[in-house]
C-alpha cells in the first residue's frame, strides 16, 4: 500500500516541556490509525502537527509528496488535504448548517456556489441530517453537531481526516451515531487518524493502534495485538484502567 502520511522523529517543545520526544509512524492510504494514551501523552499534539495547527520543533512530516514541516510549504494546501474533526465540534454558530459546510469550499477552493451547495446536501444526506440544513448549530444535539462537523471536513475532499477525540464530549447514544458515520467513512476507504478511547470502535475499524505515553509511542500493532496481548507494562496498566 502507498504511504500517505510519513512522520519522522518529530519533537515538539513548549518552552521547557517536551510534549513529543521523537515520534515516528507511517499511515498508508485507506488505513485507520488509532492513537490511544493518557491525557498529556502528546496524542493530540501529534495530530495537530500533521495539519500544522502546531509547528514541530524538529523532525519531518510528509503528506504524500508535500513536506508539512518545511517553511516554504503553503500551509493552506496541506490543510485542504488534511481535514480535522474536533472534540468540541467547533461549528460556526453564526452560520446555518449548510453555510457551515459550503463556506470553505467556496472561499478557499473557489468552488461555484451551486456546486458547493449540491455537494453539501449530498454530504448531509450521507450523515443523515439533510432535514437540518437550514438550522443553526445551537439547535442541534451534540451528536448531530459532530456529524455536521464531519460533513464540513469532507466538503473539502481531503485525502486524510484527523479526528481529535471526536466523541469525548458526547453521551453514549450520541457517540454511537457519530461512530456509525465514522465507520461508514472507514469502509469507503478514507484514511483516518483517530485520537479516541472508543475501544470497541478501535477493535472494529482500526488497522493499526499506537499507544503513546509521555510524548513517545511505546507500543504499536494491530488492534488484536494491542488490546488482547499488550507487551509493554504501561500499556497493560492503561488498558486495565480504562476497560
Amino acid at each position, binding site marked *: 500500500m502507498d504511504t500517505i502520511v510519513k512522520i519522522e522523529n518529530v519533537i515538539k517543545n513548549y518552552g521547557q516541556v517536551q510534549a513529543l520526544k521523537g515520534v515516528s509512524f507511517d499511515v498508508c492510504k485507506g488505513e485507520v490509525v488509532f492513537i490511544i494514551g493518557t491525557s498529556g501523552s502528546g496524542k493530540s499534539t501529534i495530530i495537530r502537527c500533521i495539519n500544522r*495547527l502546531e509547528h514541530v520543533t524538529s523532525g519531518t512530516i510528509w503528506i504524500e509528496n508535500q513536506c508539512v514541516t518545511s517553511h516554504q510549504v503553503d500551509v*493552506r494546501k496541506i490543510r485542504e488535504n488534511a481535514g480535522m474533526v474536533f472534540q*468540541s465540534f467547533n461549528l460556526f454558530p453564526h452560520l446555518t448548517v449548510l453555510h457551515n459546510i459550503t463556506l470553505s469550499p467556496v472561499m478557499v477552493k473557489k468552488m461555484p456556489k451551486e456546486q458547493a451547495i449540491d455537494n453539501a446536501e449530498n454530504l448531509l444526506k450521507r450523515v443523515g441530517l439533510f432535514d437540518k440544513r437550514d438550522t443553526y448549530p445551537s439547535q442541534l*444535539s451534540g451528536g448531530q453537531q459532530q456529524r455536521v462537523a464531519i460533513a464540513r471536513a469532507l466538503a473539502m475532499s481531503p485525502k486524510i481526516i484527523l479526528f481529535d477525540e471526536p466523541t469525548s464530549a458526547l453521551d453514549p447514544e450520541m457517540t454511537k451515531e457519530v461512530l456509525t458515520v465514522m465507520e461508514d467513512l472507514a469502509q469507503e476507504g478514507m484514511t483516518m487518524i483517530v485520537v479516541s478511547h472508543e475501544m470497541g470502535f478501535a477493535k472494529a475499524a482500526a488497522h493499526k493502534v499506537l499507544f503513546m505515553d509521555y510524548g513517545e509511542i511505546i507500543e504499536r500493532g494491530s488492534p488484536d495485538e494491542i488490546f488482547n496481548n499488550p507487551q509493554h507494562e504501561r500499556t497493560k496498566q492503561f488498558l486495565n484502567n480504562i476497560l
Partner: protein
Amino acid sequence: MAAIDTNTNQQNSFKIDMTDGVLVPERNENTIFSAWRISFVGAIALLFILFFFSESNLRRIMVFVSYTINQSVTLESHNNIKNELSVSTIPGNVFRERIIKPVRKTNIQKKFMSLYMYDEKSDIFEISPGLSEKEKVFVLDTIYSVYLINPFAEALKFVPDGIKTTFIVTVLAIFFASLIGLLVGLGRISRITFINRIATIYVEIIRGIPLLVQLFYIYYALAKIVNIEGIASAVIAMSVCYGAYIGEIFRAGIQSIPKGQMEAALALGMTRSQAIMKIILPQTFKVVLPPIGNEFIALLKDSSLVSILAVADLLRRGREYASKTFYYFETYTVIALVYLILTLFFSRVVGIMEEQLKKRG
C-alpha cells in the same frame, strides 16, 4: 430534537460585563428595570411639571402687575400696585438675585435704582412714590421681564439648539471612535509585532490622559501647529479617546471567541485574515454590541465636556443662558433632566438590543 448539549455554553453565551456607562435595563432584571422605569418616567414628568406648572413665589403678584400694565398704568392703579408690592414681601435674596444683579449688568442700572425703595431690614421692596407713568412702566416692565415668565420654560428654549450640537458631536465621535476601535482591536491581536506595539502604545497613552486634558490639548495646545475649529477638535478628541476604550472592548470580544473557532477555520484551509473576517468578527460583533452601546452612552455624557471649547452644546448653551438671566437653578435643573432623559432612553435602547441578541442566541 433536544437542543441540549454540553457545548452550547461554550459556543454561544458570552457577555462582557462592563458598566462604565449606565446600568442597562433588561426586562428580566427586575430591580434595574423598575429603577430605570421610575427614573425615566419621573424625569419626564418632572420636566413637564416644571414647564407647565412652576411659578416663583412672586408670580401671582406679577400676574397682577402685568394685568395693570396691559390696562395702561393710571394714577389709580399705581396705588394698587404700590400697595400690593409693599404689602407682599419679596424675599430679599430673591430680589437681589433676580432683579438687582441682572439690572446692574446693564447700563440702565442707575436709572432703575432711583425708581424703587428697598428696605433691607424689613426686606421690603417698594416703588418710589411720585414716579411718572413712563417710569412706573419701566420698573414694572423690568420686574415683569425677570419674573413673570416661567424660568423653567424659558430655560428650555436653548435646549433644542444645544441638543443639536451635542448630537452632532456625539454621533460623529461614535462613528469615528468605532472605526478607530475596530482597527485598534485588530491591531492589539495582530501577530505583526510592529502593528501590535503601535496599537498597544496608543491604548496605553490615551487611556492614561483624562479626556478633559485631551480636549484642551487638541484645541489649545495644538493651536500652535494647526488651528482646528471647535466642533472638529471636539470630535477628534472624543474619537481618539473613546477609540482606545472601544478598541479594548473589541480586543476582549475577539479573545472571548473560543480558540476552537479559529482552529476550525484554519483547519478548513482559510487564511488567518479570512477566518477573522468571516468567522471571528461576525461573532465578535454580537458579543461586543452591548458593552459598546454602553460606551456610546458614556460618550454622550462625556460630550458635555466639550462645552469648555467654543462648542455650543447643551451645557454651554445653558451656561450662557444662565449667566444672562441668573436662572442658575432652573437652567441646570433642566440640563440635568435633559441629559438624564437622553441617557435613560439610550440605555433602554441598548437593553432592547441585548434582549434581541439573547433571543436569537
